[in-house]
């Protein structure tokens, strides 16, 4: 800000890029954490559709589930602190963060829906019903979140470039 008269030096520029990317990354972490949280609260605890563990899982599924659970737990807490850090640095870019969050939600749910439910056969969405509509809705919603996130990130990138051009002009 103090150096607005001079052309920006190389170092602060790459630093700004780093913080822009960090907005996306923090959003993705938050998305992964929050969707895992919603999955746990809504489908496991409230609806009782998912089972805690249905005892038919191969060991690979158990390990994958354990690692993803641990990662999402870590992501929830770490992303909130990283969000506070971005605010502290005056580097919060809401659009990038929201885009990242949507991408995180979509990617995590798609991984859960395809890898855990279908390939590793960890557990199903619901038991004793025709699964097809549930699977379609689950993975369709995941894909929609992912797509929406990518669109938001694209507009954020465009807005950023326009801002840069305005700065130079």
């Amino acid at each position, binding site marked *: 800000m103090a150096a607005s008269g001079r052309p920006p030096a190389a170092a602060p520029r790459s630093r700004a890029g780093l913080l822009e990317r960090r907005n996306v990354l923090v959003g993705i972490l938050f998305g992964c954490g929050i969707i895992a949280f919603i999955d746990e609260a809504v489908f496991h605890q409230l609806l009782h559709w998912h089972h*805690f*563990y249905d005892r038919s899982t191969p060991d690979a599924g158990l*390990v994958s*589930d*354990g690692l993803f659970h641990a990662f999402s737990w*870590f992501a929830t*807490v770490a992303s909130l602190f990283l969000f506070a850090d971005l605010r*502290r640095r005056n580097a919060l870019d809401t659009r990038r963060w929201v885009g990242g969050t949507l991408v995180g939600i979509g990617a995590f749910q798609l991984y859960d829906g395809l890898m855990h439910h279908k390939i590793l056969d960890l557990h199903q969405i619901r038991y004793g019903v025709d699964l097809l509509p549930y699977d379609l809705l689950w993975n369709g919603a995941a894909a929609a979140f992912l797509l929406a996130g990518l669109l938001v990130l694209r507009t954020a990138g465009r807005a950023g470039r326009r801002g840069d051009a305005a700065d130079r002009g």
Partner: protein
Amino acid sequence: MAEGPHHSGSLTTGVGDPAVAALDTVAVVVWLCLAVLYLAAGRAAALRGRDALPLRHSIAWLSGTALGLAVTAGPLAHAAATSSTGHMAVHLVLGMVVPLLLVLGAPGTVLLRAVPARVGRAYSRLVRAPALRLLAHPVPAMLLATAPMALLYWDGAGFALLHHPALGPLLHVHFVVSGTLFTYAVVGIDPHPHRAPVRVGAGALVVSIAVHGIVAKHLYAVADRDGLPPDTEQAAQLMYYGGDMAHALLLVAFCAQVYRESGRRLRRADRGTEAERSSN
């Protein structure tokens, strides 16, 4: 500190009254000593003219020792001897919550402020010894804390060991010590001469949480096998969800510590650029 008396307790066979009473006494003495030593060190530091540490350290340490006492002596400890669920609750508290509270008490800092410089230097040399340096690295500390836990609880076969009159209390000591070492290696607010990079600590933390969850689910999966206590299923669920709560506390402590340290670096950098600007 607790090993000697535990052996004398184990000489009486079975879990008759004298053995239980002896163990209770040992537990009370150990936890009270830890609390009193901490307060005495704080008093000694004050007599040396040091500023008082923030109150939150004392609160953390004293609640850690109080919680440790509550689960190793008296009704809760006795319930744990007969019920798997009770045992699991005690294990969770001793292995994760008490270590976190003890580490947040910053005992190393309290000790260094209380003793003469000569003793302080000896302590620093001790902490820098290669063996301790290795143990206080997040990865070996994580293995030390999680591997025995995983072996003991994987399929419930370790329950017999946990209820053994001599090995049971020793395993309690192991849970507290290894948990404290791991928490110090990852979160530690005490000075750490060779603190590992944040991403190493974060990785060790995630792996330890994953192992805990996997072991809990596996225990749940085998809970209906013959020979396991009838409440094993409930114990496994408590291990999973209770573990999650303790892990959340650990993660918040870890992230808050990283956040605070990066804030300090940020302020230093700001002061640096300001100084540069004013000198231009």
